[in-house]
């Protein structure tokens, strides 16, 4: 059960660019991607929260994921840059249009609030500048208990060497605090040449101090938890998934199918 996901592809109005971006992501092996709409919280002026563009208007045909023979799944995600507690409105109707909800806190107080009380799925960690606060154990543990994930974007590390240092420093600090758990690694770029494959990211996450298993979880099962958490958020108490197990139609006697093919070829 490891479908790879990239939950941060920034939205661009340029359709052609978005198409190549989705094609690259599918070619690299990502089964699910989320188009990210960024919203900067403002107390004055009341900037409107953007409405997600319906997928049918963006792309005509979804590309096929490499090695899966299934089209890529595209979700919508909203990220709110919170610099004041009032910027995040609980249960706002605008949030309902999105599959995933994320916040990017700018101060320690807001980080604490985001971990403990905000009803979100992802907390973004700033990677383009020095972190203005230290990670404390209490909010991190609180977030883990509530199933909120922390997100690290790696695109800035490819772009610039100074930002690479900040990415490494901030992520190392985070991994040190929560022992590599509850972290998802996503791209956060709208350029196809800055996207990297899931195994590249797994390897890169080992550089952040995560173990191999934690690193792989960061692009696969933790992302799945985010999606499930997001669905739970919309309902009153929870969701249940049932999967029909395929019936074993193979004949019980005789060697397994794979072995039979080998001998029959000779």
């Amino acid at each position: 059960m490891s479908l790879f996901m990239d939950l941060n592809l920034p939205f661009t109005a340029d359709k052609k660019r978005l198409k190549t971006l989705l094609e690259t992501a599918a070619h690299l092996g990502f089964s699910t991607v989320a188009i990210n709409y960024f919203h900067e919280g403002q107390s004055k002026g009341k900037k409107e929260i953007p409405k997600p563009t319906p997928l049918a208007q963006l792309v005509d045909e979804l590309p096929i994921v490499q090695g899966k023979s299934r089209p890529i799944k595209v979700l919508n995600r909203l990220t709110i840059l919170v610099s004041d507690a009032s910027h995040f409105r609980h249960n706002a109707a605008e949030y309902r249009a999105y599959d995933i909800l994320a916040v990017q806190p700018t101060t320690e107080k807001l980080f604490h609030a985001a971990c403990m009380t905000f009803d979100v799925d992802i907390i973004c960690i700033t990677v383009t500048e020095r972190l203005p606060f230290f990670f404390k154990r209490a909010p991190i543990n609180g977030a883990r208990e509530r199933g909120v994930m922390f997100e690290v974007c790696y695109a800035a590390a490819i772009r610039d060497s100074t930002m690479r240092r900040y990415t490494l420093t901030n992520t190392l600090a985070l991994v040190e605090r929560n022992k590599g758990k509850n972290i998802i690694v996503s791209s956060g770029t709208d350029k196809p040449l800055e996207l990297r494959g899931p195994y590249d990211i797994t390897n890169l996450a080992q550089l952040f101090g995560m173990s191999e298993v934690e690193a792989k979880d960061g692009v696969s099962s933790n992302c799945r938890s985010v999606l499930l958490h997001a669905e739970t958020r919309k309902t009153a108490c929870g969701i249940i998934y049932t999967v029909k197990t395929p019936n074993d139609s193979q004949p019980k006697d005789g060697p397994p199918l794979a072995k039979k093919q080998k001998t029959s070829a000779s």
Partner: protein
Amino acid sequence: MQPAVFERVVVKNSPVYQYMKVSLVLEQAQTKLTAVELKHLITTGLKSLYGEVGAAFPFDLLTFEEDTLTAVLRVYSRGLVRLWSSITLLGFFQQQRCAFRVLQVSPYLLALTGNSRDLALDS
């Protein structure tokens, strides 16, 4: 006809080398580069991420196809994570954007001749 006999070989020691098959994707597809330039590019990447000690790390460029920009690298197993992360974070080649796509990684060079993920098993 005798059925094929299979022999099972178990290698207990950790492999000395790891082989990587990588391809370089450039923004301007018509750009040509030689094997020397490619190795220099990778070394620059190692140096920018790991410094002098990292740049001194031994790795070999075994083959390089200039028309497809595909190369096979050989590296000591211990340095795989370092080499891989440095080529992951390479983003520029002579002021134009580039990206390395790691196609296959294996401890056996023979495994790079074919990709099991491209096989059509159900046909």
